[in-house]
């Protein structure tokens, strides 16, 4: 220890003044004595605080088994009135298993202000871990942005998921409500959607949450009353018209929901409309709105949607900047260009469309008559007879031959409105030129152009040129025969298969007009299928055969390989296969 400096036991440092000085002995003959006045001298002491005092500790405790999907924020009332998972082994995980490498965090919403509540969200495991621990897998692997969409929806009482069409808003909403239901945070969920999309929601719920009971609000008033008050159905689906019509009934029954999801929420952009009033009158704790076009015409559209999602949060007097800031925490909007970076992913949407009642009746009559005729023909019925019946039925699925009604057209128009509003382009394929003609007439406001073998080469080239360069033409109608090959239409982001070809490979060729190198972004393919019709039966068979040799498939004539074998064609109508000699 240096002279004049010492430490004492413990943690404090003590500095003392020097007690003696050394004097060189050789300097003087006689040493000079220096006297220092020691008596009463107290050294100056300086203490440095070392690390003895423990820091203050803040404590937070959370309920056991709670998770981020649980509702930590106080419920907001609107309206009027697993076993142990595996040890990290990757083997055996299906394509739809929850990914281990991704880590999607559930961040606290901006309106959660209490420190304890914010920490509760931040300290949760990532969404992938939560899903694994709940043993909730997916039928198909979600994109990372879809998991982020779920992490956005889950903690929010009011949310607008405004992803661009085709990014899977329904799937994100379904997976999120599924988690809420499994966490016991939602027992009564209502999905409100346009009439034409009800069957689509039923199908998607079956795909993404097959274990959850679903009921569709439909039928006469007595049945609807019973359906509205059904206690044991976790998810109910109603179209907007039903909600308007049954508004008083629902209020009278005192039905309330833990979550109401509005699909195509732009339907309530007009706050004065009956639809908006009816939807806002639903008693609910959580309000989620799904829309690809939250602002169609003006920023007031968003105010209308927010009256459902977070009443009072926005008002018309706000500047766009103020509105954007006030809405930011409630709105999630992604476009394909932003979330799908690699060469364009192809997003498939199988649209199962319910025929209109009149169309259904025409279809039923045509099928009954056709099957009876085939049965009467007995063993003399050939593959050509069956094929003709199939074609006749498929045409009814497109347009009712008696009334001209078309459920598919209604759905297509709805989709095209959104596409046109976003300035995008769409291709629509059909196997019939006649169908293309009817579509062109009906889709005049979208600047529909035709492209098929009945046109001259010059006319076809001109159609492509106009479609490519003129903004007012949002849709090109093509026949599979002429339009499936040789065209580069990668500036189109949407492909609709209005009816289905016999051979999936031809459909792929058609789709690849848009989905190819140089594509401006992801391509959304909507395949229309009339529910409970021959189209659905053919699709089922083709799905099963997709991996079989293409030798049995054909793009042209029946009997030479239609994608279906002779036996399969007869089986579509539950008819016994023809005698081999006849088939040959």
């Amino acid at each position: 220890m240096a002279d004049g400096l010492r430490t004492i036991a413990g943690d404090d440092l003590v500095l003392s003044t020097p007690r003696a000085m050394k004097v060189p002995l050789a300097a003087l003959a006689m040493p000079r004595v220096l006297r220092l006045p020691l008596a009463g001298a107290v050294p100056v002491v300086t203490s440095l605080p070392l690390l003895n005092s423990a820091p203050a500790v803040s404590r937070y405790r959370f309920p056991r088994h709670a998770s981020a999907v649980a509702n930590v924020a106080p419920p907001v009332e609107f309206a009027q009135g697993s076993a142990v998972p595996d040890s990290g082994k990757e083997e055996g995980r299906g394509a739809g298993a929850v990914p281990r490498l991704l880590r999607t965090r559930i961040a606290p919403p901006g309106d959660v202000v209490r420190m304890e509540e914010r920490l509760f969200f931040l300290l949760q495991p990532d969404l992938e871990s939560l899903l694994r621990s709940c043993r909730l897998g997916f039928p198909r692997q979600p994109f990372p942005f879809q998991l982020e969409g779920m992490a956005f929806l889950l903690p929010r009482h009011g949310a607008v998921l405004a992803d661009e069409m085709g990014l899977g808003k329904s799937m994100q909403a379904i997976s999120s409500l599924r988690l809420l239901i499994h966490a016991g945070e939602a027992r009564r969920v209502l999905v409100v959607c346009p009439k034409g999309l009800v069957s689509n929601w039923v199908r998607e719920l079956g795909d993404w949450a097959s274990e959850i009971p679903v009921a569709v609000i439909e039928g006469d008033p007595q049945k609807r009353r019973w359906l509205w008050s059904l206690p044991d159905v976790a998810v109910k689906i109603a179209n907007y018209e039903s909600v308007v019509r049954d508004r008083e009934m629902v209020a009278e029954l005192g039905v309330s929901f833990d979550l109401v999801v509005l699909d195509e929420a732009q339907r309530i952009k007009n706050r004065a409309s009956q639809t908006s009033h009816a939807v806002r009158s639903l008693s609910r704790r959580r309000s989620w709105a799904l829309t690809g076009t939250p602002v169609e015409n003006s920023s007031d559209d968003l105010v209308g949607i927010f009256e459902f999602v977070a009443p009072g949060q926005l008002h018309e007097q706000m500047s766009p900047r103020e509105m954007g800031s006030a809405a930011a925490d409630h709105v999630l909007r992604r476009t394909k260009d932003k979330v799908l970076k690699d060469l364009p992913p192809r997003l498939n949407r199988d649209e199962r469309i319910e025929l209109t009642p009149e169309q259904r009746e025409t279809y039923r009559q045509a099928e009954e008559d056709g099957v009876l005729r085939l049965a009467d023909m007995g063993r003399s019925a050939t593959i050509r007879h069956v094929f003709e019946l199939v074609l006749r039925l498929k045409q009814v699925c497109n347009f009712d031959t008696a009334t001209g009604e078309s459920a598919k057209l209604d759905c297509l128009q709805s989709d095209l409105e959104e596409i046109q509003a976003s300035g995008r382009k769409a291709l629509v394929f059909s196997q019939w030129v006649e169908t293309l003609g009817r579509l062109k007439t009906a889709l005049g406001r979208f600047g529909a152009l035709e492209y098929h073998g009945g046109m001259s080469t010059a006319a076809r080239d001109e159609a492509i040129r106009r479609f490519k360069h003129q903004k007012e033409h949002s849709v090109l109608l093509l026949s599979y025969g002429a339009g499936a090959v040789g065209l580069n239409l990668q500036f189109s982001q949407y492909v609709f298969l209005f009816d289905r070809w016999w051979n999936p490979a031809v459909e792929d060729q058609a789709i690849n007009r848009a989905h190819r190198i140089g594509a401006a972004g992801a391509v959304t393919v909507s395949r229309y299928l009339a529910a409970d019709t021959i189209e659905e039966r053919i699709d089922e068979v083709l799905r099963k055969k997709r991996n079989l040799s293409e030798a049995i498939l054909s793009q042209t004539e029946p009997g030479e390989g239609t994608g279906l074998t002779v036996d399969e064609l007869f089986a579509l109508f539950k008819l016994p296969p023809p005698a081999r000699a006849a088939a040959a």
Partner: protein
Amino acid sequence: MQQQGNESSDPTFGFLTTVDSPTHGVFGGYLVVDAGGRPLEFHCTTPLKVSRAQQILYGATLQGHLHGRQIGAALLAEGGAAPVAVLIDSEAMLHVRSHTLLPVALVQRLSGEEGSGGFVIGGVTVTPTVTPGEKGDSQSLRRLLEILAGAVDLCEPFERIRSAIEEAQRH
């Protein structure tokens, strides 16, 4: 000192770490999770700032004293549930062993083989600080940690603690 680890049918796990903030000093955070990785308790400290004189006087012993005794011990003293082990992610925090009866294990994301006395779970090396005579305890700990690792990556809860401390600083 804290009670010994609880190996009941409902095991819990502690995660203890520090966050060094250039402006505020060193924060400590202690997160207790269940076997599914869900949070049960969280404790965090006010920051401790070390002066230049303290750095000089403690020399090489500073980090161990600061992390293990000052911060780690204070946090473990606040813990309610006794976890089956306290997992740490820095060697400096190993000094907390002197202040708790709970098993302490160092977890590090390493690409190599199991070290002496350690084992690998899900790409993470776990080195329990048990004496050679307690090998049985190490095996038991390994089994329990494998359950937790089935739900979450063993290094991941430390990230949560850091996020939570950042959030606490903002408020």
